[in-house]
């Protein structure tokens, strides 16, 4: 019989352990470069050079001045060396933006002795690791409703601090319905233990401008298998609802059918919007889910992945 554990509110905030775990995990991920041609032109700057001249900060090349160009583009220092006029071109630097949202509600603070880690810990590690991977790949990571996208080298610390500072979201089961830009992507990490209709509403709100996203469903093995027997009182962590069941074994059968249906509805909803659903069990290594998300993001954006 599995033994379960519920984490307190403070334990649901990311700490040093989670941050470090995330960095370790990110280092193990393959280097990822989103293919430039699939990246829509964006006004925002990124550190990620596109190997072509464009808007950027680092020097790309000098090219001869073409008549009709604005005179202020002439690089006078270079032009002073000979008789021709030159224009200094910079490398075009753009970045992809990935929005993260990590569920930190009470239901995430749950673990059983079958799992390697609690759900919240796994979710945070996963989110921070992905963010780190993307930023290292030159993209920008933001947090839905919390933090504007940025490409800081210390993105994991920044995100962790942001999460710690924000205690209001500890009650939220679902992300805010803020629409994001069309070519941005959203990664929602949660257990998605809400009625499918509510989830659908939120996903619709986020993707209303055409953005796409990925749902990462973190599941404790106990929630999947319900390995209890005998008499039990089930207790919900968020609403305080209790359910007394006489024979856990027979109830468990009904429960497994019910949860399978819930997932089916979720996947159907995601498929219709071009989103993906990743189910991650906490008794599996986190790298499994991280790799899958990276692959999915690359695939949807046509990115290439290579060894570091």
């Amino acid at each position, binding site marked *: 019989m599995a033994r379960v554990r519920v984490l307190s509110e403070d334990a649901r905030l990311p700490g040093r352990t989670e941050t470090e775990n995330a960095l370790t995990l990110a280092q193990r991920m393959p280097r990822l470069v989103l293919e430039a041609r699939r990246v829509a032109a964006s006004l925002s700057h990124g550190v990620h050079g596109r190997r072509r001249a464009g808007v950027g900060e680092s020097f790309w090349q000098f090219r001869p001045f073409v008549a009709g160009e604005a005179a202020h583009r002439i690089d006078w220092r270079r032009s002073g060396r000979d008789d021709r006029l030159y224009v200094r071109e910079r490398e075009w630097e753009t970045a992809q933006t990935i929005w993260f949202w990590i569920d930190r509600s009470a*239901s995430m603070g749950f673990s059983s002795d079958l799992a390697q880690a609690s759900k919240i810990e796994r979710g945070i590690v996963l989110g921070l690791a992905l963010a780190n991977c993307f930023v290292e790949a030159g993209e920008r990571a933001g947090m839905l409703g919390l933090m504007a996208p940025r490409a800081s080298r210390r993105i994991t610390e920044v995100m962790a601090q942001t999460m710690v500072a924000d205690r209001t979201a500890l009650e939220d089961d679902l992300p805010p319905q803020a629409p994001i830009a069309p070519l941005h992507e959203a990664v929602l990490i949660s257990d998605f233990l809400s009625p499918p209709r509510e989830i659908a509403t939120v996903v619709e709100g986020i993707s209303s401008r055409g953005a796409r996203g990925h749902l990462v469903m973190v599941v404790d093995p106990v929630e999947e298998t319900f390995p209890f027997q005998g008499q039990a*009182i089930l207790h919900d962590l968020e609403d305080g609802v209790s359910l007394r069941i006489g*024979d856990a074994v027979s109830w468990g059968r009904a429960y497994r059918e019910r949860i399978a249906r819930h997932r089916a509805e979720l996947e159907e909803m995601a498929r219709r919007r071009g989103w993906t659903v990743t189910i991650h069990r906490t008794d599996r290594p986190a790298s499994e889910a991280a790799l899958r998300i990276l692959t999915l993001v690359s695939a949807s954006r046509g990115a290439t992945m290579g060894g570091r």
Partner: protein
Amino acid sequence: MLGLPLTFTVPLVLTALAALPAIWLLLRITPPQPKRVDFPPLKILADLRPERETPARTPWWLLLLRLALAAFLIIAAAGPIWNPMAADSSRAPLLLVLDNGFAAAHDWRERMNLASERIEAAGREGRTVALVAAAGEPVAIEPTSPAAALERLRSFQPLPHLPNRQPHLEPIRRYLEASPDAEIVWISDGVAGVDGQGFIEGLAQMAEDRRITVVKAERASALALAGVENTGGQLTTRIIRAEPNGRDAGIVRALDLKNLPLADARFSFEGNATETTAAFDVPTEIRNAIARIEVLGEGSAGAVSLVDERGKRRRVGLVFGGTSDQAQPLLSPLYYIERALSPYSEIRHGRGAVADAVSQLIDEQVSVLVLADVGGLDRETLGRVTEFVENGGLLLRFAGSRLAAGNDDLVPVRLRRGGRNLGGTLSWDTPKTFAPFTRESPFFGLAVPDEIGVRRQILAEPDGDLASRTWASLADGTPIVTADRKGDGLVVLFHVTGDTTWSNLPLSGLFVDMLRRITALAGAPNDVGAEARNAENQTVAPRLTLDGYGTFTSPPANARAVVTRDYAERATAEHPPGFYGPVDSSLAVNALVAGDRLAPLNYAPLNARMAGLVGAQTIDLRAPLFTLALVLLLIDTLASLWLGGHLANLTGRMRRAGAGAALVLAALLITGPAANVEAQEQRPPVRANTDAALVTRLAYVITGDAQVDETSRAGLAGLTQVLAQRTALQPGEPIGIDPARDEIAFYPLIYWPIVASRPIPSEAAIRRIDAFMKGGGTVIFDTRDAFTAPSSGATSPEGQHLRRMLATLDIPELEPVPADHVLTKTFYILDNFMGRYATGQTWVEALPPETEDESTRPARSGDGVSPIIITSNDLAAAWAVGPRGEALYPVVGSDPRQREMAYRGGVNIVMYALTGNYKADQVHVPALLERLGQ
């Protein structure tokens, strides 16, 4: 019940077992409390109602546990008893006769258990119980409740005398008249008492057709001592038993007044013999210290024989007719006589004039009276001495100028006046020597040395019976020792003086042997003289008596004084065995006297049912069953907690320590004793030999006396500290060793305190010590008796112990530490070696004689280290420090620096043991200094 030896006090309660199925049903549908499970997905399942509310069943093992718990409680309430006494439905009163003489002391515990079992059984059957203690005073027998009888039974103790059961017949008869249907149970020791078969015959007459049960061991197992005889060269004791009982061999031990063991002797019964003897072959001085002889392990008063003055060595009184000059003892004949007699006899000196001295000595009950050069006695004294001799005393006279001048009647032969000079300046003769002793002489067998020369003697008148009275004669046939029997006693005359003026006989070993044989002829003093006058009315009160187990106690309230010093009866209830009278002339009363026999009882006239002395071992099962139920209840509680999921919380809080410990504890409670025994058996003895070899350390011998051993350890620890502070030596912790078992080659120095009460080390241990000393080790023997040793120069018990111990060792010649011995120079310059006491002498191996060129050296040493240092100053006690470095024992002596000097002595000894004669080379120092000066 069901063929098992099991009954129930309240069998009706067992019907409650019928309720078990009902309990089973109830328990089955009453499940354990549901566990609480936190489960996040619940909120999306609000529509998912449980399909079946039928609770899960209680697990079968929990059900079984609870049923067993209920069953145990019910059975325990029914009062089960294992091995009950045979139930007797007659409800007849019970008369319990319990033998409590000394013969019952050996297995008294079994007897008490048996008696209490009988009484408890009677209590269960509701019978009244009457108790009779067969060795006690006959009292009226009252039937009492079993509880009161049990209380009374616990007050019974074995009594130290042979029981007389006959007086109890009368109360028993009266009791049987009052309750005619009584059942009689007699827990007997099987040994006939003072009355012999009388009790059994009387009881058989009264019993008629009543049921009598005799409970006895198959064979009377008691051993007893009857009589101690101090004859010739050894002390013998008789061991008797009532009938052959399989205890065919054993050990008798002799102890002194302080209960210290002196000697052991083995005895064995041959075949079916009921008596045997054991002999202690020990020196006279030890034999004289024996106050008590006991059969080892018997633990009964009958197996103890007390020895008083009567059985001890001869007391010899010395009287000198002349005046003796204290400043020149060698001129007194008593000096030689005393020296010759003292190893074998107790010497008493007469004080005052001859008449007073003789009278005083006879009052002191001497058995040998020595009159050296006493001429004639006055009439009254002569009368007393004659009476003394005729009552068995031995009068030993030595000639002298006074006797030569005139003698009384108390001489064996008629004497000529004057003497005969041989080999004097005015004589042509040479000093005469002894003729070989004739076969009739008590001296026969003694070798006569050639050097003996008699220069002067008193001559006997040549009577007809002179030859028959002559024990020794000179080579020319003139008698030199004559003797005559007078009454029961003997008069012996040496025709020479006791000193060396007439002959050199007193200087020879022959003199010692002759005196020894003469004193051996003296009978035990028959308490004549002074005793004869007041023996009738002299009562001696008990001072120290034996209880039934044969241990000394203060006399009981009913003990009465014996009215005569000649009391030689068996002990009775009034006169319990023990020592009577003052310490120095105690009268011993024993449970059995010489010539006693133990007779087995013949129970045939009783026509009784016989039962063995083995108890039924009735066990009341209530307590174990209740305990078992309690344990089950605990397990049930833990199981319920676990099923309800609370155990996890509990363990989470306690980090599993508490519950785990409880479970382990429960397991230990069940299997504990057995496991412990196994563990102890399997644990191999581990000795830290490697540690001992790696660090130089001091060692002491574990004597077995806890206090002495602790003192030795603390003492060497103190010395170790001092050594570490003051010298370059950093010894390890001192270690206690057992020379018989441990390897002792690693230790340079072994400290061996002598404890007189401990047994002598085994032969193997002595051999190892010998090898150790020959191999260069040093042993300090510390007799620790400088303070307590007798000032007379006699050897203390520790000293004797040490002598016996070293008797088989090859000990070099010893001498007190000379002032120039290297031992006094090795670290500090010392005069003597103090310990807790400062007066004792320290002995080391004697140095070779000083050579010519050594005479100027400040220090001398032998070739090696003295293998042995003997001291009596209790060194360890002076060195001993406690855990905080405080001295544990005060030093005895006036010198305030004595403890410091003791430490210095210890440092010197350790340095000596480690560096040997190195410091003796100090001889070169003056020469070196001289060269440096240039």
